[in-house]
């Protein structure tokens, strides 16, 4: 049994009592000191009963000037340093690197339908080009054959020898031995 000071009024009371006999405040409840006015309040209070200052706010120090400010402050009131920028970067654990794989130069087996369509279109375009080239070759050969035939007919009838020889050289056809 001993005498203690009441946390609110400061007067001496018994430590076995639950309430202060002078001010009536509870001796069991933990008290917190208001950072603004210094008034002692019950720790569970959110705000100071006298000045209205929030009690359970955690304070942090500015990394630039060391000024103390609430944890949810955006900027330091003293130097204006933005708090978000001063938050240290969290170091995360290094993730293990995936094993090296060669670059895929072939079409993967799980290719989507769009990829298949694109490849199919490319193949069709190539086919079209091939058919057009073949038809052009046929046209050239047919024209040459037609000219050859015409020149034969004309040579036998009207055209002079020299012109026929030019066409013979051009088309590689020997008309007369």
């Amino acid at each position, binding site marked *: 049994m001993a005498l203690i000071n009441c946390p609110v009024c400061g007067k001496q009371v018994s430590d076995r009592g639950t309430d202060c006999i002078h001010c009536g405040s509870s001796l069991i409840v933990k008290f917190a000191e208001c950072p603004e006015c210094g008034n002692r309040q019950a720790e569970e209070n959110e705000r100071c009963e006298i000045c209205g200052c929030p009690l359970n706010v955690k304070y942090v120090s500015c990394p630039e000037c060391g000024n103390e400010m609430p944890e949810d402050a955006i900027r330091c009131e003293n130097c204006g340093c933005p708090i978000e920028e001063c938050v240290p970067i969290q170091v995360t654990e290094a993730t293990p690197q995936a094993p090296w794989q060669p670059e895929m130069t072939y079409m993967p087996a799980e290719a989507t339908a769009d990829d298949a*369509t694109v490849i199919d*279109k490319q193949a*069709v*375009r190539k*086919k*079209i080009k091939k*058919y*057009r080239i*073949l*038809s052009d070759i*046929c*046209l050239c*050969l*047919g024209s040459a*054959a*037609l000219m*050859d*035939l015409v020149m*034969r007919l004309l040579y036998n009838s009207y055209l002079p020898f020299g012109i026929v020889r030019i066409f013979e050289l051009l088309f590689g*056809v020997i*008309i007369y031995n």
Partner: protein
Amino acid sequence: MGFSLFFISIVKIPVLIGLFVLFRKKAKKLSDELEQSTGE
């Protein structure tokens, strides 16, 4: 000899023209199909 060359020329002209028409038709058919698939 002259007749055979003449005959070959006569034969090969329609053959080549036929091949030309055939290849052109195939190319046109494929390009139409491609256009249809692209349009859809």
